């Protein structure tokens, strides 16, 4: 369970995030939507202890992230390309993450094998360093790396952006499969309302740092969201 309490983040006098209380139960697939500057990435950065909250804190499965680092072993995230190491090949990057998460090479290889469809033959054995891959392919590497080492919490910021349609569809399949036994908590932000309503069972809409909608996904959700953003 992830719990944010009295969580605010201010830059000067500007409040970029203000969450009196937000609870994400274990195993939930949680979608975060909102326009640019709504506070999505800020929330994720706070959850990963990359920035400090102005007030309050976040509890990740019993670990207060602002105080202890014990959340790291069971949390995996891909926010942007600053989570990739440009001078490694994709394989080396996967092994590196694997070694940090106590996975053997064979285990990493087996996991990557299961993503061959998703990679579409453009990732493995390409003799390219990550920095030379296209944006979309870099993203594929970053997203798959978060699945290494059986994390309990997976955080993906805008995973669908920059991906081609085939890959988007495959990614949706992967996320659904991952969350169906309700063991992994997945936090996904997106600008694409269609995708996010499809994979997430709960959607929270942020606007200027505050929660303005908190919806359990139903067939009407997409319409509701579209109306909200149109207005």
């Amino acid at each position, binding site marked *: 369970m992830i719990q944010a309490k009295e969580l605010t983040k201010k830059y000067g006098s500007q409040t970029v995030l203000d969450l009196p209380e937000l609870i994400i139960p274990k195993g939930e697939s949680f979608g975060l939507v909102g326009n640019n500057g709504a506070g999505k990435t800020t929330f994720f950065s706070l959850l*990963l*202890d*990359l*920035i*400090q909250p102005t007030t309050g804190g976040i509890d990740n499965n019993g670990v207060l992230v602002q105080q202890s*680092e014990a959340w*790291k*072993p069971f*949390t995996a*995230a891909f*926010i*942007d390309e*600053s*989570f*990739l*190491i*440009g*001078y*490694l*090949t994709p*394989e*080396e990057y996967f*092994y*590196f*993450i694997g*070694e*940090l*998460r106590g996975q053997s090479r064979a285990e990493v290889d087996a996991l990557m094998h299961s993503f061959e469809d998703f990679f579409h033959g453009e990732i493995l054995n*390409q*003799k*390219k*360093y990550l*920095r*030379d891959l296209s944006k979309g392919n870099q993203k594929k590497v970053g997203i798959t790396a978060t699945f290494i*080492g059986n994390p309990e919490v997976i955080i993906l910021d805008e995973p669908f952006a920059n991906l081609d349609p085939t890959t988007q569809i495959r990614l949706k399949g992967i996320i659904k499969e991952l969350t169906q036994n309700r063991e992994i908590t997945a936090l996904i932000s997106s600008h694409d309302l269609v995708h996010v309503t499809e994979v997430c069972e709960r959607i929270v809409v942020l606007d200027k740092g505050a929660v303005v909608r908190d919806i359990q996904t139903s067939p009407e959700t997409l319409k509701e969201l579209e109306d909200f953003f149109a207005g």
Partner: protein
Amino acid sequence: MFKHFFKLQWKSFFRSSSFATNLAFKILMVFVVIYFIVVFLSLGIGAYFIIENAGLGDPLRVVNRFLIYYLVMDLYMRYMLQKMPVTNIRPLLYLPIKKNSVVSYSLGKTVLSFFNWSHAFFFIPFSIILLTKDYTPLQVISWHLGIMALFLTNNFLNILINNQDRVFYPLLVVLAVLGISQYYGWFDVTTYTAPIFDAFYDLSWTALISWMLLAMVIWASFRYFRRHMYLDAGLALKKQEGKTEDYVWLNRFGNLGTFLKNDIKLIRRNKRSRTTVIVSLLFLFYGLIFFTGPYEKFPIAYVFAGIFTSGGFLFTFGQYVPSWDSSYYPLMMSQNIRYKEYLSSKWYLIIIATLISTFLAVFYLYFGWKTYLAILVGAIYNIGVNSYLVLWGGAYVKTPIDLTTNKKAFGDKQAFNGKTLLLTIPKLILPLLIFWIGDRIWNQTAGYLMVALAGVIGFAFKDLAFKQIEKVYKKEKYKTLSAYREKAA
């Protein structure tokens, strides 16, 4: 058309973030530039008399003899440091500007580089001295102009050979072999090249040949760029073939091995870090300045030199930990990584490099065992004390590093903040002080031993030191993250 280009250049210069730097650094830079100008000038003025007094022969001939090395060194420095003109072309491609003018502007701009006009500070005074002596004025001028054309030729050669590691490094090896051969008198390449430079003087018209050569390389580079002005050709960022490597022998070190593997890849696969390693090798020769010449009478300078000679990598690489990982620092901070392991791997890297430097510095035994002792003592102090201090200081540096370019490889304004400056006191001044005390009370050897002892004591407190450094890193974490992000934005 050129008016537009000029305006763009003007803005890019005055609006660059490095321009808005602090005053202290600007003053420092001015001093550095003045220093180099003075060195060049005094060499230019003094060279004639130094050579004459040393009885080496006709100064002009002597300069001509070694000119080939000067030219090649110049080319080498350019290759390492001079920025390529292509970088700013991309945005101009889509605009209604003739390609020819873009190319001639970009190439023309390189002529104004420091690498071209700095040589004038040597050659102009040298030529003037020649004119005041018994040399034929017209011939001196032809020689001077001929040589200048060669330096400009270097400018364009560099443009043509840049990014061609395959040509460049073998060439460097050939040159090193030639240099060593000359030193030991096996083979003297200058007997073949000196007559060429002599000819500029002896037969004035030959200077025209070097100008023709210059015209040729200008034409070649113009054509090369004109032809390759496509995003997927000349303007494409060079891609290296990626090789998946596994340093299995490092696996036995567990998590530490994981980081070491990464650090080795970091150094090997990025231009910036490779340059740093090369520079750190140059530090090996730093001692030559101190162990020979006027400093001989000051043993305290030996300690100073010992620390620099063995600590090249420590100072050049170490001072930028953790900035080497700046482009993926958020990953490091959210992955399952403990600071201690991360820092240990960097520390071991520094220690190993210091040991290698100390080993490579064996040739200083030639100057006597006391000289090498100074280096050994310096190495012990570097390992025992300075290794922590650079890691500690690094936490405050917070300069993001772009691994793929050599930009700023030679110093950075932000590295000069108050805290890092304060930390140089224990790095350099404290060992000198310790030595001085030992030297005063007992003798020189005791001074050395005391510096070494300080190193050994420091080494013994490794765990304690690491705990402190870890605290600093944790405290600085958020500031560091946001500083690294600024560059990305």
